[in-house]
């Protein structure tokens, strides 16, 4: 079975984001960028399925600026077989990503698409669901366990009430949650091997889908600074203060 794993290049989780002075977005100049942690989990799961002999080929795909190639190389160093870089300038919204990925899936015909449930930059949590709808494939989101057997993909999902297991008839879309696995480190020999693995580059425009943004960002600001609290003498004062504030 072939697996398609979309991966996103995002601001590194260790970096404290700074808002651009003109408030149009987050300043990414000279900022460390890495693979979205949820995407790393998706790559790891695909590699584990390959190590189990279930998966035969792992194709990783990334949409974004040319440097997203580094993110693909990381995935290749973790064990993916080949990459597809789809270059696009500016912010590509989840629906546009889903449309492009549908076109890639039509071409690649994977048995499974594994992707992170959300990216830590915008926290949209939409791409996987939209992609499943566009492809009209079953979806198992927020996976904490993925078992492929007898032609079915059994996905244990983390839901509000606990765990739910769904059995999906392939091909299917699965989005990964944090507890699915602990991604491996790309080893030195594998980083060097990954340099020789193929990456195809295409332009987003070549897919013939509308990727123009549907949202307008008015402005981006830092969260308001937390103000100092107030100490009260006794419970009665606390209650009256809470009442005055409309909290009771």
């Amino acid at each position: 079975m072939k697996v398609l794993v979309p991966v996103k290049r995002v601001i590194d989780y260790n970096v404290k984001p700074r808002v651009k002075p003109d408030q149009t977005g987050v300043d990414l100049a000279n900022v460390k960028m890495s693979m979205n942690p949820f995407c790393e989990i998706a790559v790891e799961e695909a590699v584990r399925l390959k190590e189990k002999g279930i998966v035969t080929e792992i194709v990783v795909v990334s949409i974004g600026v040319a440097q997203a190639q580094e993110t693909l190389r990381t995935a290749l160093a973790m064990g993916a077989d080949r990459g597809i870089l789809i270059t696009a300038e500016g912010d590509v919204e989840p629906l546009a990503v889903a449309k492009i990925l549908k076109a890639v899936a039509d071409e690649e015909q994977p048995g499974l698409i594994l992707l992170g449930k959300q990216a830590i930059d915008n926290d949209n949590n939409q791409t996987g669901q939209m992609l499943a709808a566009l492809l009209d494939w079953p979806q198992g989101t927020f996976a904490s366990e993925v078992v492929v057997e007898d032609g079915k993909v059994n996905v244990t999902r983390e839901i509000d009430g606990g765990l739910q297991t769904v059995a999906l008839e392939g091909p299917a879309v699965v989005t990964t949650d944090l507890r699915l696995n602990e991604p491996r480190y790309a080893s030195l020999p594998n980083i060097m091997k990954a340099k020789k693995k193929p990456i195809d580059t295409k332009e987003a425009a070549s897919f013939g889908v509308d990727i123009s943004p549907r949202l307008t960002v008015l402005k981006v600001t830092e969260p308001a600074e937390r103000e100092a609290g107030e100490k009260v003498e006794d419970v009665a004062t606390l209650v009256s203060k809470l009442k005055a504030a409309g909290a009771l």
Partner: protein
Amino acid sequence: MSLIANRRDVDFMMYEFLNLDKVFQTERYQSYDREAVSAILDTAEAIAEDKYLPCAAKLDANEPSFDGEKVSIIPEVGEGLQAFAEAGFYAASFDEDVGGAQLPGIVNLTLAGFFSAANPGINSYAFLTVGAANMLNAVGTQEQKDKYLGPMLEGKWSGTMCLSEPQAGSSLSDIRTKATPTEEGHYLIEGSKMWISGGDHELTENIVEMVLAKIPGGPPGVRGISLFIVPKYRVNDDGSLGAKNDISLAGLNHKMGHRGTTNCLLNFGENGDCHGYLLGKPHEGLKNMFHMMNEARIGVGHGATMSALAGFLYSTKYAGERLQGRHPQDKDPSTPQLPIIEHTDIKRLLMAQKAAVEGASALLYYCTDLVEEQKLTDDKDAQNRLALLLEILTPIAKSWPSEFCLEANKHAIQVLGGYGYTREFPVERLYRDNRLNHIHEGTHAIHGIDLLGRKVSMFDGAALKLLLQEVQATLSATSEMSALGEYNKDLEQALKVLVETTETVKAHENVNTQLANATIYLDAFGHVVIAWLWLRQAQIATNALANAQGDDVAFYQGKLAACRYFFRYELPKALVQFKLVSDLDETCMDLKPEHLTGNNPL
């Protein structure tokens, strides 16, 4: 912000201070480029952050213990080393033909630094294994390499260096461990070895002890020392492990710092059955051990620098968050308190750390580059020149960071005040860890004697001349840069004093007097070298500032500020020290034991 690495400074050292891009163009390293190096360093930093750093305090508080049978160590140590092994880092710097990744030495130094800053207690096991494997690779027979090298480069077996004995520490010529040849080809080893880091533990399947011993009937003193491979478990011809060798752990030493690394008193041949295998030729043991020792000495200086870096990064972060007091001119208690990083004396404590850490770092990158260039040239003259520069700089590379980066750790504690003195914060541990570096791999005094007694005069002063030429080259290159004019003059003056002091000492007839203040000379000499490297960094920063943008502006300005600090606050100290040395001061020499307390301790 990372607490173990400053990646911007690492890039500065690799690509601006040194020219790693040029190294990528050589045939030997052509498979590497900036992107691959960055990915490799990302993996190293992540493993150091995830597996080494979080358990550093726990490991310090729970040092290895010995119940008479086995050594117990908290499991995080084994897990960390396993991640290091799986990442392929043991074999990183070795040639491809022995199964290595042939990683440029400069990159290898950088990645080792992350582990060292995060947790030296774990790092030492890997560091010693790589050093022992390097020596084996350099002087071992094919059969020995086939047997031992593979498992060492996979991290399955570890390595050590066994030099000191309870009665022979700095005085190696007095070792007593005996190696008696047998008809079967192996030697029987008998004796005790002290201070053996990683000498015993259960972290790896086998331990390859590299032991210095004397073959009876050989020449006296250091010329009669030979080197032996002495494995904890004997190795069968098919590579499988055989019987346990006759090595016993007599006890663990309980150290001030570096507490994660077992430090052992090992008894070899208590039952007369300890097999050792000669490595290299008989009586050339010390020369061969220097393959490991020179590397280890640069490594010790680097370890000292990394402990100071960790303290610098932590105390800088703390100083930005801790609110305390107001400026002397603002006494109004109703105004908000300042982050202490705004106080001038805290700035001084932080700048002193930066100047020490990044100055020492430049020296270690420079030395590593000398080793690298030796590999990359076939020209015998060039190799000779590089080797001489390395000879004279090795005692500085080991000692200057051990002295002045330890001082940096002292400043880091001071920034945290009372909190810095508690074990709830890492800076006191970093200080304790760093305190070792002054002592091992040749004490501070030994390197002073090595530098003043040997290195500055070797081959008619050839090594010193080469170093002076290097410094002169920087002076010429910066003589027209007006912003650096003051430093240029100061360095030229200090260099002149260094040369005059050296000549005065060499001209004196009494060797005891010559070497009476060798340690002081070592420190002062080191200051001149570090000042030179700060001028080089300032030269690069000045040129780069013209086109710098964003955070780079502050980065380069910081380099200039640190250069200024070093020339104003530190370099003048060297002149005072040189004066003492050139006066051939005999204050300490004249001291009689009974002067110390009024009673004669002899």
